[in-house]
Structure formats: structure tokens, C-alpha cells
């Protein structure tokens, strides 16, 4: 048998047997005990009436067998109680109406007494046996129903491609198995609930109270349960790892109580649904992680190629312009020399920009791991100042550097970029001729580096966003990369530190970087 055939067979037969089971159960449920006793009485009465007709023809002893047959047939339909009643009544009826002397309970012969007694015992045993077989059948059927329901549920749920489909299938399977309207309910916010997929499933009044109870205690509530049973629906929690837990809602069409069997089935359904929901969520997480890993790989490839592809032409331009400038032939007019200088400056800026873009992407992808070693803050400041010398050439720079600064564990290259970015930011945003103050100092467990300027300051609405990527304050001059300050923040934070921007009372902006001090031996201590 090919796989397709198996599929079509299971798809064709199983749901059909499922519906049969449901139909049969509905029929059984309609037979209340009273109805069964009435049926037993009616059967005995009917046979008695009929026996008046045929007993004269066949004799009283054959009539006993007819009564017996009726009891056995009855046992196929009704419960044990009505069978006992039918057995007793038919014994009495036979003895009274048909066993001579008729219309008399007295027994003439010993053999007649034996017959009545044996009839009674045989009817009783037959009835019992039939009832037991039926009970067993019923049990089998209910087990099969349970298994089929669960099988259908798991099969359907495993075929759902996404969360929406999964919920749709959950609702469909519940409706089919419990002959009810079903809903998949999620709690939205502050004690409000919403039915997903099922539309006309109002969750008001007692139903809302029942849902609150389920959400709070994790126990079933609503109709046919122990709590808030005046509600229209029955509400059952799903023990998935999702928080808050989703809830199943059932509006059962039946009027008699929810049987233990149904309760078990619902419990099993809830467990399977929880598993399916969790599996679905894990799949989503795995998919997300896969996409993330893929995008990280892509961005790394992009970075590598960009660092290579963009830096190579930049290196070529710079080398070519540098060679031209180095030649400095007197034949170059001032105009030509000016043009070479422009090319060199633009290349420099482009190179810085590419560098910043690469660093920003590295930060973004979480690939920045500081290489910590003990660094001399004075050395750091000197290197940063030397690197920004050209950009700061139109400003006055004042450096306040105490001699007794401790060695600080940090990544020299990253912190150098923090300082150079702060310095070039200050140079870019303040008018030429103004002073930029660079200050380093150590407090008990913090190194504080600050760069202050005497420019126009930062517009108040920009203060909070000044470290955002590509944020540009209003009226900010062009020329920055929009990345420098975000790198400052990223690198400071990679060291477990922080950076803050503020306006100085006397005018101008101040950027303060704070780094935790891990080693406390100062230069003086190291000498000893």
C-alpha cells in the first residue's frame, strides 16, 4: 500500500467512525432511567397481552420461553435495574396469568415451583450477562472515542502551519468532540479576555467571572464545574508554558451533567493542546534564531566585503593623492595644490566614515568584546589628542590631567575612539577659536573623562536622543557621520561604563564618560 493510499484510507474512515460514535452516544444520552423502566414495564405488558393469544395454542411452558426471550432482548437496550424489574415482573406475570391454575399465585406442583424459580434465576443471569457485555462494549466504545478524539486532535494540530491555523484546528476539534461551541480565549490586559478565531462567543457577566477564576487559580470554572457554575460556558485552563495561560471555552449543547469521561477527555485535550502550543512556540523561537543567525552571517559577510571593497579604493585614492602631494613639483599651480589637498581631506573623512560604519555594525551585531589590559589614561589622552590634531587645529584645547591617575583596565583602541569621537564632535559643533576642555579624573571607583565645549550647546529636545544613531540636532552643521556619539555610547557600555550629555550652566555642551575602576594601583603604587 502506498503512503497516499494509507493517507486516504485513514482520512476517509476515521472521521466517519468518529461521527458514528458521536451519534450513538447522543442516542444513549437521551435515554433517562425513567424512560428505561417504562420501556421494561411496557415490554412485559406487551408480551403478557400477546401471550393471552398464543398460550392456548402452545402451552404455558413455551410461553415462559417467550418471556425469557423478551427479557434477553430488553437487556440489549436497558440498564441493570430495569432488567431486574422486567425479570421479576415477567416471572410473576407468567405464574399468575398462564401457569395453571391461572389467576392464582399458588403453585399446584413442585415442578411448577421449580420452573418459576429457575425461570427467575435464568432471566436474572441472562439479563446480568447481557448488561455486563453492554457495559463493556460501552467502555470500549468510550475508550475508542477518547483515543480517536485525541488521535484526530494530535493529527490536526501537527498539521497546522502557523499559530492562526493551530487555534482554528483546536477550536474545530473541540467542537466536534464535545458537541459544543468552542473558543480559544486569551487574556489581553488588566483582566480582559478575548476569544481568538471564534467570533460569537460573548464573555460577559458570569462567564467573565469564571474566566477570572480560571486565570487566577488555574482551575476549571463555569457551567458543570465547581466554580461560577451559573456561567453559560465551561472554561478550562491550558497548561502550556505561555503566560498568561490561554483558556478553552465550551458552550455545551447537552443538558445533563458533564460526565467524568468527558472531563477526562477534556483534560487530555487540554494537555495535547498545551503540547502543541509549546511546540509551535519553540518552532517559532527556533525559526527566529535561525533567521537571526542567518542575518548575522550576512551582515558579517557584508562587513568583511565592505571593509575590503571600500577601503581598497580609499587606500588607492589616498596613496595617489599623497604621491602627488609628495612630489610637490613647482609646476603645480596653487589651484592644483589646493585640489590635491581637497582630495586628501575628503579621503580622510571618507575613511573615518567607513571606519565608523564598520564599528557601528560590529557593535550592532554584538561583536565588540573589549580586549582589556591595564592602560595609562595619560597615554590614552595623548594619543587621542594627537589623532584629532588636524580637526582641532582651529580650536583651543585645554587638557586637565592629574598626575596621580590610576592605571585603568580597558581596551585602549576602543577608548581611544571614544575620546577621538568626542573631540571631533566638539570641533564640528563649535565655532572656530572657542575652547574645548578635556578632563580626566578618578573618583573612588570610577574614572571620569569629560569633553566640554563653549559652543551653542545641545537643543533641549535633542539631549535625550543625542546618542542615537544618525540623530542630528536642529541647526547642526553637516560633516559629521551621525555615528560618532552612538559609538561613544556603545564602547563606553561595552566597558560596563556610561556616557551622559548635558549643557553647561555657562553655555556649551559637556559629555561625560564614566568607567568603573577595576584595578586601583596608581602609578605611584606600581613604582613601589
Amino acid at each position, binding site marked *: 500500500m502506498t503512503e497516499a493510499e494509507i493517507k486516504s484510507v485513514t482520512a476517509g474512515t476515521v472521521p466517519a467512525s468518529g461521527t458514528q460514535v458521536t451519534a450513538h452516544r447522543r442516542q444513549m444520552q437521551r435515554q433517562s432511567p425513567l424512560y428505561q423502566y417504562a420501556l421494561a414495564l411496557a415490554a412485559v405488558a406487551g408480551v403478557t397481552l400477546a401471550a393471552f393469544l398464543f398460550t392456548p395454542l402452545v402451552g404455558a411452558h413455551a410461553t415462559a420461553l417467550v418471556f425469557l426471550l423478551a427479557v434477553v432482548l430488553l437487556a440489549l437496550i436497558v440498564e441493570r435495574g430495569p432488567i431486574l424489574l422486567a425479570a421479576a415482573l415477567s416471572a410473576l406475570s407468567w405464574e399468575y396469568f398462564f401457569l395453571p391454575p391461572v389467576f392464582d399465585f399458588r403453585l399446584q406442583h413442585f415442578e411448577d415451583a421449580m420452573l418459576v424459580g429457575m425461570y427467575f434465576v435464568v432471566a436474572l443471569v441472562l439479563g446480568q450477562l447481557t448488561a455486563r457485555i453492554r457495559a463493556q462494549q460501552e467502555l470500549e466504545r468510550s475508550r475508542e472515542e477518547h483515543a480517536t478524539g485525541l488521535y484526530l486532535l494530535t493529527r490536526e494540530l501537527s498539521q497546522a502551519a502557523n499559530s492562526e491555523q493551530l487555534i482554528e484546528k483546536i477550536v474545530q476539534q473541540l467542537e466536534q468532540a464535545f458537541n459544543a461551541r468552542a473558543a480559544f480565549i486569551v487574556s489581553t490586559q488588566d483582566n480582559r479576555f478575548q476569544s481568538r478565531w471564534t467570533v460569537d462567543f460573548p464573555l460577559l457577566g458570569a462567564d467573565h467571572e469564571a474566566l477570572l477564576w480560571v486565570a487566577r487559580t488555574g482551575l476549571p470554572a463555569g457551567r458543570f464545574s465547581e466554580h461560577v457554575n451559573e456561567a453559560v460556558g465551561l472554561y478550562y485552563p491550558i497548561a502550556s508554558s505561555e503566560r498568561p495561560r490561554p483558556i478553552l471555552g465550551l458552550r455545551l449543547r447537552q443538558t445533563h451533567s458533564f460526565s467524568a469521561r468527558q472531563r477526562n477527555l477534556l483534560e487530555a485535550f487540554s494537555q495535547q493542546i498545551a503540547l502543541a502550543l509549546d511546540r509551535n512556540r519553540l518552532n517559532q523561537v527556533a525559526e527566529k534564531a535561525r533567521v537571526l543567525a542567518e542575518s548575522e552571517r550576512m551582515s558579517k559577510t557584508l562587513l568583511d566585503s565592505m571593509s575590503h571593497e571600500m577601503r581598497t579604493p580609499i587606500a588607492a585614492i589616498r596613496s595617489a593623492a599623497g604621491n602627488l602631494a*609628495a612630489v610637490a613639483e613647482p609646476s603645480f599651480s596653487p589651484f592644483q595644490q589646493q585640489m590635491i589637498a581637497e582630495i586628501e581631506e575628503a579621503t580622510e573623512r571618507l575613511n573615518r566614515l567607513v571606519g565608523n560604519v564598520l564599528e557601528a555594525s560590529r557593535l550592532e551585531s554584538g561583536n565588540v568584546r573589549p580586549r582589556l589590559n591595564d*592602560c595609562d589614561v595619560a*597615554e590614552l589622552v595623548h594619543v587621542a589628542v594627537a589623532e584629532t590634531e588636524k580637526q582641532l587645529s582651529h580650536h583651543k584645547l585645554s587638557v586637565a590631567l592629574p598626575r596621580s591617575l590610576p592605571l585603568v583596565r580597558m581596551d585602549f583602541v576602543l577608548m581611544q575612539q571614544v575620546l577621538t569621537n568626542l573631540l571631533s564632535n566638539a570641533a564640528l559643533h563649535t565655532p572656530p577659536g572657542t575652547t574645548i576642555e578635556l578632563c580626566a579624573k578618578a573618583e573612588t571607583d570610577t574614572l571620569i573623562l569629560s569633553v566640554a565645549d563653549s559652543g551653542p550647546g545641545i537643543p533641549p529636545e535633542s539631549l535625550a536622543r543625542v546618542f542615537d544613531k544618525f540623530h542630528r540636532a536642529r541647526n547642526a552643521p553637516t560633516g559629521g557621520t551621525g555615528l560618532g556619539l552612538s559609538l561613544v555610547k556603545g564602547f563606553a557600555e561595552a566597558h560596563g561604563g556610561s556616557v551622559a550629555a548635558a549643557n553647561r550652566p555657562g553655555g556649551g555642551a559637556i559629555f561625560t564618560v564614566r568607567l568603573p575602576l577595576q584595578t586601583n594601583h596608581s602609578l605611584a603604587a606600581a613604582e613601589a
Partner: protein
Amino acid sequence: MSESANNKPVVLVIEDEAQIRRLLRVCLERNDYQVVEASTGEAGIDGAIQHQPDLIMLDLGLPDLDGLSVLKRIREWSKVPILILSVRGREEDKINALDSGANDYITKPFSTGELLARLRVVRRYGLPRADVETFTSGNLTVDLATRTVKMKGRIVRLTATEYSLLALFVQHAGKVLTHGQILREIWNSQEVDKTGPLRVYMGYLREKLETDPAKPQLLVTEPGVGYRLVLHD
């Protein structure tokens, strides 16, 4: 060494970018070098065997082999001076290359002046060592025989550690020394991240030898890599 017939030193350029190779060729030939090119790592290793160059310039980002393995394979049999071409932000690669036998590095984009200076220094390490007793760079004079250090002709007193540190730089004058190399030589330490004492002693040396310790002209910092004693005329 195989100085070519016209006595120009031969430089093998191992670099995958044609434009950079072309520029290097123009610029080097103009400055009296002879240039041999290789565009892949394998071709570079072959070229090193075939041409016996006086100098190799090796790009770390090659398409076939990574630069570091090319370096290691050449170093298995040759002491030819090797100058690494690298980009900024790859400090770890530079340190690895220097620790694997590269003589120095230069960061792209570089100026021609920088490149020529680097090449001159690196090339010296390929030549037979002349036993110099006196070292001079700018205002600094170090007499290695008498262990005397002078600035502008005036004697500077150094402690034993300061002197050994300076002597190490003099021995490798013009060349970058990684933190790890210095720590191993002077402090006999393998812990390359414990740069504390080194930073402290560099501070002392600069105080004593630099005209302006805030703008070092002799003992310059190579950020994230190490230090270099710069040669001045």
C-alpha cells in the same frame, strides 16, 4: 640576498587588489626598488622561493590563504624581512602576525612617506648586523658599551629596568614591539594582558627622554599593539 643586476633591492608584493599593486609598483620603482607581484597566497609563497626577494610586503586579507598562514609558511625557511599590510580595527591580526615572525606592519590607507620609512627600517633587519656601539635618534644618544644615555649631550640617569627597556627598543630601533614581546623580554612574563608595569615604565622613560611627554616623538604608542622607537636623523 639576491640584489638584482642593477643593484636595486627586490620587493615582493603579495596583495590581491590590482590597483594597490599597481600603485605600490609605481611608487616603489620611483624610489629605487624593483617590484615583483603576486596576487594570491600560493603565488606569493612561490614568488618568495623563485625571486628570493630582499623584502616582502604581505596583505593579511588574501582570497585563498589567509595572510597569517602565508607568513608562517615563508618563515619556515626564510628570514626575509616581512612588512604586513593591514587595516585598522584588526589589531589582533597584527599582533598575531608580529608574534609569528612579521617584522613590522603598516595600516591602510598609508602615505608614501610612511611606507618608505617603514621599508627602510624593515630592510635593515634583513642585512647583516653591524656591531654598533652608539645609537642616535634625534636628541637621544645611547652608548651601549658604557650603558650611558644622553639627551642633547647631557647624561640622563635611568634605573636598571628603564635602561633594559630602552636597550630593547634600541636593539629593535624603528620597529614596532608588541606588548607581549616587551613583557617577555624585560619582565619574563607570559601574561600579555598584564601591561601595567610596562605602561608605568613607558611613562617614566617618556618623562626623562621626551621633550614634551604629552607629545612623544621618540617612544610612540601603536594603539592596541605596542610601542615603537622612532628613528630621527
